[in-house]
């Protein structure tokens, strides 16, 4: 019985093996790949997706989803740029405004999901257009650039530790991942989040504050997306309304690869982090082999569908193994 439990946690081991495999393939394809600084550079590239993926993991665990994160990132970036450039705020105040805007955007999603009981898919599909449209409308699709160097360091700078150049955002992302990973697995709210994702009706009866938890997940995703927007603007030196286009795909794919179940109640930040790294290695490997964006989109899109399919087939199989025929029947009922 407990063997099954062990198998479930082995999912991360499987993922880890995949990651090592991907690294090996990438190293064979391009010898420079395994250089420490190249690997750390990957950390810079995945920082934004990584921050958002932490929030997305929580949202998907509640059996929700947030398709609007890419658009939210653009909106936050534009608001940051406009606050600094047009409203004359200091760059740090403007950054804070950007982060708060992200929280508000997430809160609006959360309100529609909890108060009106609308399906998260359709809510965030609509706000994806809404937030992108606001970003376009506010900026008239004009980029804002010319940020002070002290700000750009946040996205482009290094901590020089001996021979190793650590991208500035690396420790921040690592900290967010570790704290939220621990929080999700060890705190009361984290534990409740899983219960809620498994069975919302039962969670309500058991006294779990369902609506507050969902709200927290969406607001948290919004805040982290706002933070990602700040780092993004500092990294690319410009705030533009087309920022983060298709970001949601990478983020959701990383979560699903990492074992977060679209059906809710399953997954972990650790898995998501591994999924994120796997995706980043694959993308970086393709970059080094000069595989174009087009082909990368095909690969990532296919990986998403296959990962979800593998996950649901895997869940059905273990369910059937646990309960015998009865479980298989229940699993196929819907």
């Amino acid at each position, binding site marked *: *019985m407990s063997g099954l439990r062990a198998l479930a946690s082995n999912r991360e081991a499987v993922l880890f093996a995949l990651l090592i495999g991907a690294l090996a393939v990438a190293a064979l394809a391009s010898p420079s790949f395994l250089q420490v600084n190249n690997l750390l550079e990957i950390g810079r590239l995945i920082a934004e997706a990584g921050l958002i993926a932490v929030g997305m993991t929580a949202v998907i665990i509640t059996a929700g989803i947030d398709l609007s994160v890419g658009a939210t990132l653009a909106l936050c970036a534009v608001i940051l740029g406009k606050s600094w450039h047009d409203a004359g705020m200091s760059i740090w105040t403007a950054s804070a405004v950007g982060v708060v805007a992200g929280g508000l955007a997430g809160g609006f999603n959360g309100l529609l999901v909890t108060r009106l009981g609308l399906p998260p898919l*359709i809510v965030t599909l609509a706000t994806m257009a809404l937030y992108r449209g606001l970003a376009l409308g506010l900026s008239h699709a004009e980029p804002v650039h010319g940020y002070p160097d002290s700000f750009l360091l946040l996205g482009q700078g290094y901590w020089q530790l001996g021979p190793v150049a650590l991208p500035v955002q690396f420790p921040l992302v690592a900290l967010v991942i570790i704290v939220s990973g621990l929080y999700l697995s060890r705190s009361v709210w984290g534990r409740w989040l899983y219960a809620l994702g498994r069975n919302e009706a039962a969670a309500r009866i058991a006294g*779990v504050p369902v609506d507050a938890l969902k709200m927290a997940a969406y607001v948290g995703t919004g805040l982290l997306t706002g933070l990602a927007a700040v780092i993004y603007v500092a990294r690319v030196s410009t705030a533009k309304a087309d920022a983060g286009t298709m970001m949601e795909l990478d983020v959701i794919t990383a979560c699903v690869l990492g074992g977060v179940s679209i059906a809710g109640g399953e997954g972990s930040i650790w898995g998501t982090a591994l999924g994120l790294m796997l995706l980043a290695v694959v993308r970086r490997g393709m970059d080094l082999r000069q595989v174009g964006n087009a082909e990368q989109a095909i690969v990532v899109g296919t990986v998403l569908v296959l990962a979800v399919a593998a996950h649901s087939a895997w869940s059905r199989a273990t369910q059937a193994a646990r309960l015998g025929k009865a479980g298989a029947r229940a699993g196929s009922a819907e």
Partner: protein
Amino acid sequence: MSTSSVSSSAVLLETREVAKSYPGARALAGVSIELKAGEIRGLIGPNGAGKTTLVSIIAGMERPDAGEVTLAGRRVQQFSPLTAAALGVAVVPQYPDLFPSLSVLDNLFVGSWPRRVGVLDWGKMWRRAGEALDRLGTTIPLSAPLGSLTLADQQMVQVARALLHDARIFIFDEPTTPLTSSEADRLFAIIRDLSAAGKAVIYITHRLPELFGLAHRITLLRDGSVVATVNTDETREDELVRLMAGDARAEAARPRRDWATGDVVLGVRNLRVEGQREPVSFDVRRGEVLGLTGLAGSGAEQVARAMAGALSYEGELVIDGRPHRPRTVQAAQAAGIYLLPSDRQGEGLFLGLSVRENLTVTALRWLCGGAGWVDTMRERAVTRDYVSKLGVKLTSIEQPVETLSGGNQQKVVLARSLAAQPRVLVSLDPTQGVDVAARAEIHRLLRELSAQGVGIIVVAGEAAELRCLCDRVLVMHRGCLVADLPAEEADEEAILRHAGGVGEEVARSSAPEALAPSRRHVPWPRELTLAVFLLALSAVVGLLNPNFLSPDNLRDVASNASHVLVAALSMTAVIITGNIDISVGSGLGLCAAVGAGLAVSGWPLGAVLVVTVAVGCLLGLVNSAAVVGLRLPSIIVTLGTLNVFRGVLLHTTGGKWITGLPPSFRVVALGRVLGVPVGVLIAAGAALALALVLRYTAWGRCLYLWGDNPRSARRLGVKGSIVVTSVLVLMGCSLALAAVMFAARFSAVQSNAGLGFEMLVITCAVVGGANIFGGRGTVLGTVLGALLVTVIGNALTLLQLSAYWDKAVQGALVLAAVSADVLGRRRRSA
């Protein structure tokens, strides 16, 4: 109502030694009954007697393990709902299970539409439906959505549907539960008419008085066997009650209580939940097991849920002398009241989580140090403590909870409440679906708790269980508290008598509820709102900028809307089935590139169209293969293919524009027939075609059935895989057509063609009233939606507002439309 007139008629239904077992329980142990034309047969028995199983077998929803069923002289070989219906069996369930979003007329004929030259014959349906409803003496509007009717009228639709299908055996399963007494009277009259017309009727009920004056004979089931079949005019209610109670009295006598009941721990004052006739008040004393019972619909369970904050109510609770009005489960828990749900799979367990996680979920609040971190050591200790206290049999507290037996699962749910140190425990059917040994143990635990001073309320349907367990039993009937029985009077007979309303007059023609007019919400059609809004918007924009109303601009608007509409129409069909396709933007770009590429290399228009549509069809097949074949949600699949298709497009074009489209190709967009752009004609043709297909073909109706209620649709023989595949392929094909129209409008196709197109198309459909939950959507609505979206885009440009806001407006429109849907649905169900 003489028995002799029936006894000479033909036998319509016969079951011989029908047996059925489920894992762990025998539901039927060889039941033989015989039903003649014109007979009304009452079927009664305590919960778990096998009534539902018997009826399910007759209706073809279950297959018996042994025995045979003969319907209208033919032995049933194949047990399926369709076969049973073909042999004349019709079930009128307690709560309607047809298609709430569809019209009454639709519901009357779904699955077996009358046709003329291959298309559905609505004229004939209208006539026959009118006749059928006239026969029943009702005036239900045929065009109203079924879901907008009262439950009584919905039942009437089920009866009319059965009549229209020439049913000969009618099965009513506790039909009066949701009805007022005048509505029930009307139903009884109709059942008598059915009998007079030579139909056979099986009438299942717990309300014995209903059977007198209605049924010719009554069959009593208990423990899966027929105990007796009696002629109604030769028996009395109390005799039936005695038969139902059976010799259960010989079973385990209730142990004497050896502790004293103390102060009132919880007082319920004038508590009333919505739909309940009279408020109830009672006390729960320390150290007392209080039973609360009643038939389905009596309100007993609702009262219990309200006490635990899980249902809204009026009135208040008095806890230790202080008034409380907990409005949420959390508030009730803070006051010490905990609910133990009966439906373990639905409301009790978190399947997939461990025993530990299931057990401590409520107590976590107290198991954490500062900052909300769980103290895992303490958590494990508490789990082990309760596992041993309650004697849960397991190998490890980390094993998934679904690997435990039913009785042990129930103990885990019980332990969850106990770990939170309750003052009052409200327990719904605490021994549902557990074996005899576990049941005795759970009873013992509840009594122990009560001895320790916890107030215990047990809601149970089974009289024997209440007698064994409770010190006092409150009985509810139709929303009123009708009896407060002390232990010595609370035997099965008394409980059944009060719960069934025995002694109550059946016909209360002057019942107050009969005066209330039946509420019928006829929803305001979305199309009308849209049309009004569209006209108003056009007028305003026209006033601000007269150019808007110039023929040239209007033709422009129509042209701009045309390719969007072609795609939006198919999106409507996709959404009607409860799916969505967000890959259409990339699909549009890909198809446009293929079409444009072929046109540039000199292919004739016809060949270009054929190949492009074939490509679109292929895209649809890819999506449907993943949705149907891998059983994945359509939104996730199309989120993936959205990228795959875009990638394929960029890969094949290398990101270059395709320019120099020949005029012979661009005629699709630029040509005019009698002054009307070709594109507009194509779009109008597509709209007309889809409207006709949706209305006049079985396939079109099946889209609605599948989207509205897949379970019932499956029962009627609708194949979901075919519905979903066909609709996604249709989406692909019309997308290809839209792509050709799109490409022809410009002299070049860019590699980012169609970016954001999915949102535009979904906006048109959803704003037009296509319901994302499935089952609703019209062609007219989508046409208006497409016009509205285009007019807004045009207006933003003409009024020199930034076109950049276009996207934001689309998003806001979708949110407004889906919110209106949800709020409308809520108001209707309120």
